[in-house]
């Protein structure tokens, strides 16, 4: 029996969802016009006034916001309420440029935590559960978001934050944690560490995991589920739009339901900006229709995915997005070919290699080089050099057919690739361009 945190919203009719979106978008555009001069100017430049937006059908008339706008308007340029009404900021890691600083009113935090609560209930969470939040707490949205959602659901919340793997495992075992929230790479690492301690999946009390904040493949999901003996659910979000919980997976594990009562999703052609029909792959664009402090309109996420409105067996009616294939920022262009780290991960996991890998990109004589470092495992090791060489070749072939590129595959010692306790550092690009 599928359970919902807010059944009347999560299973509302499409007409009802559209009605909410129409009303809220019109109101939000007026709010932004009145309070965010930066965006009002963009609308004026496009010859628009709030009156031009009568329903969500008019959304496509509105100009986009991009990460560059966030940079230009830093820090207060896109804030939609007086600072006295803001109660919190959260911020991105700033790995791909300047930090994003997002603002929240108390209501904004409530709706964000509500979205996270929906995700926890969709993963089977109830007030009987012990929910360990091993996402970082602080400026990063992962910890605070899931922490708040866990409170709303009534779980016993264990705010371990990230890091200190021994302590994480101690709490999971001693307090019988049933739900784990962290990045997928950290979940894989915790699983690996517990296996090394001799723990079988049956001895690990966890039953579900809510993993997000980085791209991960279906194969990685399978491997985490097997080592921890859990069902692993994906969760999606961006600091710019509040944090995790913008979309979340249900028991069907076939894409994430976008919380459409708070966010309108579009998929566009990243080159032309043209809106694409459902089912076509493109860049995901979000409009926050309820948030007041940081009300982004048509924000380009640079995440590549596909939207689907097919009926979901879980009963939720909100549109589903596929797992992002990768951020356009994560995408590497190697010898003119677009490469997503997630593609490399898929090849490795399919061939039985661990999800721990590192991609090194370099440039020799004006030609890009791609090296994939993979850790040798006891299962894979043999005394026979020929067999190991054959496995290496199998990897090279697998990568070639996935990427259309020849990569050098280097087998390295176990645990020699740095483990991430937060977000994984998968790519080292040494090209000086």
């Amino acid at each position, binding site marked *: 029996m599928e359970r919902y945190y807010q059944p009347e919203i999560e299973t509302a009719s499409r007409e009802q969802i559209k009605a909410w979106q129409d009303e809220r978008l019109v109101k939000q555009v007026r709010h932004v016009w009145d309070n965010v001069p930066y965006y009002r100017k963009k609308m004026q430049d496009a010859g628009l006034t709030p009156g031009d937006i009568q329903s969500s059908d008019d959304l496509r008339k509105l100009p986009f916001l991009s990460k560059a706008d966030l940079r230009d308007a830093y820090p207060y340029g896109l804030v939609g309420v007086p600072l006295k009404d803001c109660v919190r900021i959260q911020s991105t890691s700033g790995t791909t440029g300047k930090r994003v600083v997002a603002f929240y009113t108390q209501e904004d935090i409530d709706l964000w935590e509500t979205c996270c609560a929906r995700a926890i209930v969709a993963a089977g969470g109830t007030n009987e559960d012990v929910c360990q939040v091993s996402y970082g707490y602080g400026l990063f949205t992962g910890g605070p978001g899931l922490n708040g959602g866990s409170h709303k659901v009534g779980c016993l919340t264990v705010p371990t934050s990230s890091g200190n793997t021994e302590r994480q495992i101690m709490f999971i075992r001693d307090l019988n944690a049933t739900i784990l929230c962290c990045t997928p790479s950290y979940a894989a690492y915790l699983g690996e560490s517990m296996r090394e301690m001799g723990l079988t999946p049956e001895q690990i009390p966890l039953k579900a995991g809510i993993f997000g904040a980085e791209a991960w493949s279906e194969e990685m999901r399978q491997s985490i589920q097997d080592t921890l003996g859990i069902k692993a659910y994906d969760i999606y979000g961006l600091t710019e739009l509040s944090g995790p919980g913008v979309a979340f997976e249900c028991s069907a594990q076939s894409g994430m339901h976008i919380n459409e009562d708070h966010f309108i999703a579009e998929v566009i052609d990243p080159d032309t900006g043209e809106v694409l029909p459902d089912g076509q792959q493109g860049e995901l664009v979000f409009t926050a229709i309820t948030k007041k402090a940081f009300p982004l309109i048509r924000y380009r996420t640079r995440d590549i995915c596909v939207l689907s409105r097919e009926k979901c067996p879980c009963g939720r009616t909100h549109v589903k997005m596929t797992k992002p294939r990768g951020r356009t920022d994560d995408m590497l262009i190697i010898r003119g070919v677009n490469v997503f780290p997630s593609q490399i991960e898929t090849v490795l996991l399919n061939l039985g290699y661990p999800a721990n890998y590192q991609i090194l990109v370099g440039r020799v004589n004006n030609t890009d080089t791609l090296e994939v470092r993979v850790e*040798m*495992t*006891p299962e894979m*090791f*043999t*005394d*026979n*050099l020929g067999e*190991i*060489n054959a496995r290496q070749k199998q990897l090279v072939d697998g990568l070639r057919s996935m990427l259309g590129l020849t990569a050098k595959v*280097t*087998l*390295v*010692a*176990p*645990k*020699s690739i740095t483990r991430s306790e937060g977000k994984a550092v998968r790519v080292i690009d040494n090209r000086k361009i």
Partner: protein
Amino acid sequence: MINQISVFVENRPGALRSMTAVLAENGIDMRAFSLAETSDFGIARVIVDDVYKTTTALRDAGFVHSVTQVLGVALSDVPGGLDKVLRVLAEAGVNVEYMYAFLGGKKGEDAYMIFRVADNAKASAALAAKGVRQVGQDEIAGL
């Protein structure tokens, strides 16, 4: 038959030493040693006095390894000694994958070699039939 321990070693300065350090710290005595290398990694093959202690120490130190059964052969330390053994194996149709010399027995008259062959049982029987002496794990440990 002898239990040979094969260890995965990265091909970079100090990698091999980090493995021998583990053996040294645990007071393990090596009887034979060989290294097979590719461009980015190698396999160190060792014969030791205490297989259990060695594999435990290597595992605890995080080294990937495996145990392979190899033949230990005592051959006369005279011209033609090795040739005789290889002829026996050739006539028995046994393929030798690799072989390496022993660090040295202390008795003087015999030389020892380690053979990794495609078919241990067949090779062992052929050597025994031709009177070639083989050494087992216990004898190795005692040398």
